C-alpha cells in the first residue's frame, strides 16, 4: 500500500479554489511542472505500447525459437531470447498490457467499492458505519503484501485473482478517504437543502456529496495505481499472479532468475520496464496532486 510521503513543500497554496477545477485547467497545470509533464508523457507512451504493442512487437510473445534459447541480444532478437527461445522484447511489450491493466482494474475496483462503502458509512453513520469501519480495521491489521498473499491462497493463484487481491488491499484507503470527506460535507448547507426538498439518501450520497469528493478519489487512484502495479508484479514473481505462458514482467523475472548465470541480460529488461512504469506513474500522480490541489502532501508507491 502506498506510504504517504510528503516530498515537496515549495509550492505556495493557490488562491483559486481547488475542488471542481475543470479538467482542462488541471491538465494545463499538470503539464507546466517538469515532473508532471515527464510523468504524463511517459505514462501515455506506455499506454500506447500496451494498446498497439501486439502490432509492433517483432514476434509473437509465445512463439518458440528452440534453435535460439537464451540467446544474447542480437540483430535478430534485439533483447535476446528466454529459456524457450521466445523473444524477450515482444514479451516485455505484451507485459505492458498485463501490468497497466492490472493497475487500472485493481484501482478502479477498489475505487468503486471503496467510494460506495465510504459514502454509506460516512453518510448513514451509526451501527452501519461501525460495522463497515471494523472491516477496514481488520484489513489494515495485515501488512498489505501478506493480506494479498492470504487472499490469493483462498481464491487461488491467477491474474484476475491477483488483481482482485490488490483491489481488496486498497479498499480501506478509498473508503476512509471518502468517509472522512462525507462526514465533513454531511452538515453543509447544500446537503441540508437536498434533504429538505426530499431527495432520497442514495441520491444525496451519489449526486450531491460524491461529486464534491471526486477529485480526492481521482488523486488517490493515481497514487494507488503504481503501487498496485508493483504488488501485482510481486505476486506474479512469487508465482501467485499471472501464470506462464502469459508474458508478465513479474513471471518473466521469476524465470530469468533461474538462468542468471547463462543469460544475465534476461533479468534486466522486464524489471527495467516495470521500474520505468512505476516512476512515470508516481511522477504523474505527484503532478496531478499538485495540479488539483497544491496544498496536499505527496505520496509514492513503495513496497517491501
Amino acid at each position: 500500500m502506498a506510504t504517504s510521503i510528503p516530498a515537496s513543500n515549495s509550492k505556495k497554496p493557490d488562491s483559486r479554489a481547488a475542488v471542481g477545477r475543470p479538467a482542462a485547467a488541471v491538465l494545463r497545470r499538470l503539464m507546466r511542472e517538469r515532473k508532471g509533464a515527464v510523468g504524463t508523457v511517459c505514462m501515455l507512451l506506455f499506454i500506447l505500447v500496451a494498446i498497439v504493442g501486439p502490432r509492433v512487437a517483432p514476434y509473437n510473445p509465445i512463439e518458440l525459437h528452440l534453435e535460439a534459447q537464451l540467446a544474447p541480444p542480437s540483430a535478430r532478437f534485439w533483447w535476446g531470447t528466454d529459456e524457450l527461445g521466445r523473444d524477450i522484447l515482444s514479451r516485455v511489450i505484451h507485459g505492458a498490457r498485463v501490468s497497466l491493466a492490472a493497475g487500472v482494474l485493481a484501482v478502479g475496483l477498489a475505487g468503486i467499492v471503496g467510494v460506495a462503502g465510504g459514502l454509506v458509512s460516512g453518510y448513514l453513520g451509526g451501527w452501519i458505519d461501525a460495522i463497515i469501519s471494523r472491516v477496514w480495521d481488520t484489513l489494515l491489521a495485515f501488512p498489505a503484501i501478506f493480506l494479498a498473499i492470504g487472499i490469493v491462497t483462498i481464491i487461488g493463484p491467477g491474474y484476475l485473482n491477483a488483481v482482485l487481491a490488490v483491489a481488496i488491499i486498497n479498499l480501506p484507503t478509498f473508503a476512509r478517504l471518502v468517509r472522512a470527506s462525507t462526514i465533513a460535507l454531511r452538515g453543509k448547507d447544500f446537503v441540508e437543502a437536498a434533504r429538505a426538498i426530499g431527495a432520497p439518501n442514495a441520491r444525496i450520497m451519489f449526486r450531491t456529496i460524491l461529486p464534491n469528493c471526486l477529485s480526492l478519489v481521482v488523486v488517490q487512484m493515481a497514487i494507488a495505481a503504481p503501487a498496485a502495479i508493483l504488488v501485482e508484479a510481486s505476486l506474479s514473481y512469487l508465482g501467485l499472479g499471472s501464470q506462464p505462458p502469459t508474458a508478465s514482467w513479474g513471471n518473466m523475472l521469476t524465470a530469468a532468475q533461474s538462468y542468471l548465470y547463462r543469460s544475465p541480460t534476461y533479468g534486466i529488461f522486464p524489471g527495467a520496464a516495470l521500474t520505468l512504469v512505476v516512476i512515470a506513474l508516481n511522477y504523474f500522480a505527484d503532478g496531478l496532486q499538485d495540479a488539483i490541489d497544491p496544498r496536499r502532501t505527496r505520496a509514492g508507491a513503495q513496497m517491501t
Partner: protein
Amino acid sequence: MIRHVLLRILHLIPTLFLASMVIFFIIVKAPGDPAQITAGPEATPEQLAAERARLGLDKPLPVRYAVWLSDVVHLNLGYSLLARRQVTQMIGEAIPQTLRLTLASMVLSILIGFPIGILAAVRQNSRLDAVVTGLSSVGLALPSFWLGILLIITFSVRFRWLPPSGVGDPDQGSWYNLRYLVMPVVTIAASNLAVFARFVRSAMIDALAADYVRTARAKGLGQRAVVVRHALKNAMIPVVTILGIQFGRLLGGAVVTEAVFAYSGIGRLSVLSILNRDYPVVQGTLMLVVCLFLIVNLTVDLTYGYLDPRVKLEEAR
C-alpha cells in the same frame, strides 16, 4: 497517560479477534484437504476419516475455531503438516533471521537516508537536492525482486563475490555467514532509505521554515546550531512515524526480498507454507505478523503523542 495506554491496548483486542477469524477462515476456505496431505495420496477412505478425526477436522466450524483460538492464546500453534515439527519451533528459527535482516537494513537506511535527507533540505533546490530527490524517486519505484536480481547478476554472476541465495551455514563463523546477509540487506535498505530521505527532507524543510527557526537565526545562532538544535529536533517528530511503520512492516518479514534470496526468515516461511498448503504454519506466521504489526503501530502512535505534546490524547485515534 497509563490509562490512555491501557485503553489503546484494549482497543486492539476486537481487531485482533476479527483478524484471527480471518486467518482461521483463510485455511478453512482454502482448497486442499489437510488430512489428505498428512495421510498421503494413497490413503484409504477409512484412514482419511481417522486422520480427520485426529486433526479435529470432523468437528463443526465454531468448535474448531474456539479450539484453535485457545491453542493460539496458549502459544500452541500445532504441528506442521509437512515438516512434522512444531510450528512454534519453525517460527522460532525464522525470527532471528528476519530480525537480523530488519535491524541491519534499518541501521543502513537510517545512516544513509537521514544525512542525505537533511543535506537536501538545508540546500533546498540545489543540484544536490535534485540528485537526492531523483534518486529517492527511483528507490521508491525499484521492485525489490528486480533490484535483488540486479545485485545477483553483479556480485554473484559477474564478480563471484557473494553467494546468490541462502542464509549460510551455522557451523561456519559469523564472518562467513555475513556474506549471505549483504545483498538482502542492501535490497531492503534501498527502498527504505529512499523513504527516509524523502521524509526527512520534507520534515526538515517544514521545520526550517518555522517561526522558531527564524527566531533562532535572529538571535544570531550559527547555521549548524540552528539546523541541529532547533530544526532537526522538531523535524524528528513526524519522522518517528515513518520509522516505526517501516520497522513494523519489515519485522513481519520482507516477503519478496526473502523470496529472491531464498533467505529463510518469517516472510519466506509463510510464502512457502502457503504454496505447500501447510496451513498450521500459515496460521501461525500470519497471527505473529498481525500481532507484531498492530503492536508496532500502537507504539508509533503512542510515541508520537509523547514526543509532540500538542497531539491531544483523545485525538490520537
